[in-house]
């Protein structure tokens, strides 16, 4: 065996390990999300009532996975069969493909430290709507089609604030490689640019379709949205892909804004990086789950207005603020890392205050307009 082939084999083994990682993590996360949501709704969630589910029903998801393998794969009459089968494959493949560049720890715990890592993440994750459109359109089901329509306008639109706020870590660290972005975060970027972190978080919550933005698969109005017609493991693939996307969004947020794998003692024990990264990601993931359990669903016009009239202008304003304030500080001779971070934090807080002021002003004027239109109350 030549060296080249040995290299390929090494890469393949690494890739398999890395691809199994999100799958294994998700098996645990589905259980965790179900438990947290159950507590929010005053239930117990999965318990150890089943014989083989283990303590606290930890292995419930394994049991579900095995069960779902034995269910029939039904393809409805009139569906476009090829596209119908390809859609769940694409969903899972895209969800896993992002993990090629995610750094789980300092060098070595990453498949490849791509020099355009952040761009790769954006490019690959924007393939997910394709799978939704394929699923919704090929099912030849009206619910599925409505779900696909919504996925197009919502998930595609939220990419813009996501990219705009992603540019800020790129700008501050001067690199697109996720590893360098982490290494540049002596102060986590959430403390440097909290507005960007907020925009990125909301945009990625919408990208993965978490509850306030869960229109594409609104289960109480359009059954399951774009994957209404799927059964058995094909349904399971969508479910799995969606959870992996949630985990990926949390991990990416941790990498860009919470310092990734950085934490105490990582220099001595590199493997500890996985623990810190996963703890941070779990925190973000749980915020998503709490959203899921606590929020009502928005209407399509509200979702689109929130994106185009709030997140996009805010993302533009944040990008301008950070770029100008930082460059002005450097030009004025403030070059220390801590001083620059403090200046940017102050600018961000001011921007946040201004936005809050504008929001309360507009909502007050909207309320006044509406109360003006309301017919006067007639007392008998």
């Amino acid at each position, binding site marked *: 065996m030549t060296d080249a082939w040995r*290299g*390929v084999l090494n*890469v393949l083994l690494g*890739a398999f390990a890395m*691809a199994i990682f999100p*799958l294994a993590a998700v098996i645990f996360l589905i259980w965790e999300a179900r438990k947290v949501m159950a507590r929010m709704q005053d239930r117990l969630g999965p318990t150890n009532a089943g014989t083989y589910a283990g303590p606290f029903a930890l292995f419930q998801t394994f049991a579900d996975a095995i069960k*779902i*393998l034995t*269910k*029939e*794969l*039904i*393809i*409805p*009459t*009139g569906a476009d069969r090829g596209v119908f*089968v390809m859609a769940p494959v*694409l969903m*899972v*493949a*895209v969800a*896993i*493909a992002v*993990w*090629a560049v995610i750094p789980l720890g300092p060098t070595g715990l990453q*498949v*490849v430290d*791509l020099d355009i890592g952040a761009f790769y993440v954006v490019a690959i994750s924007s393939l997910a709507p394709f799978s939704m459109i394929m699923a919704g*359109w090929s*099912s030849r*089901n*009206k*619910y599925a089609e409505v779900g696909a*329509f919504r996925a*197009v*306008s919502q998930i595609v*639109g939220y*990419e*813009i604030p996501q*990219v*705009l706020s992603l*540019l800020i870590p*790129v*700008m501050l660290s001067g690199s*697109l490689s996720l590893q360098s972005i982490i290494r540049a975060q002596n102060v986590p970027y959430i403390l440097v640019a909290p507005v960007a972190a907020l925009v990125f978080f909301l945009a990625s919550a919408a990208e993965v379709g978490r509850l306030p933005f869960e229109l594409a698969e609104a289960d109480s109005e359009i*059954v399951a949205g774009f994957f209404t017609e799927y059964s*058995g*493991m094909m349904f*399971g*693939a969508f479910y799995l892909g969606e959870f992996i996307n949630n985990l990926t969004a949390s991990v990416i947020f941790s990498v860009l804004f919470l310092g990734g794998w950085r934490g105490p003692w990582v220099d001595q024990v590199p493997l500890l990086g996985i623990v810190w990264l996963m703890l941070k990601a779990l925190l973000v993931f749980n915020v998503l789950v709490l959203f899921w359990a606590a929020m009502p669903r928005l209407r399509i*016009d509200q979702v*689109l*207005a929130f994106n*185009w*009239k709030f997140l*996009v202008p805010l993302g*533009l304003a944040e990008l301008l603020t950070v*770029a*100008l304030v930082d*460059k002005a500080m450097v030009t004025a001779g403030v070059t220390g890392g801590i001083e620059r971070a403090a200046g940017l934090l102050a600018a961000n807080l001011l921007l946040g205050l201004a936005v809050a002021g504008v929001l309360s002003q507009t909502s007050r004027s909207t309320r006044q307009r509406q109360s003006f239109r309301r017919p006067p109350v007639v007392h008998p």
Partner: protein
Amino acid sequence: MIHPYAVVGLFLLVSVFFGIAPLALAWLFSPKKANPRKQQVYESGNPTFGETWIEFKAQYYLFGLAFLAFDVEAAFLFPWALAYNQLTLYAVLEAAIFLGILGIGLIYVWRKRWLEWM
């Protein structure tokens, strides 16, 4: 040493494998008992009527156009953000003008009422 993009290519192959594998397993294990009633389209129990593959509502098209303009311009911002630390204040001001043009585009779309749901 393998080229990093070759590694990405191999990883893409692996991820497609992980997309196909569960479906292949399910195809092995699952029963295959097709019947026409089971394969009906599920629309809450009502028989489906009319054509499903209709045109998208024109509104989505407007949002798609706005998205396209912004996405292309956001792609232009990547190299600028990457080189930010080496740029002078003048270059940053130029980018600010570019962002201002983006903003004017947004205001135009807003004033044209493309962002209202009709």
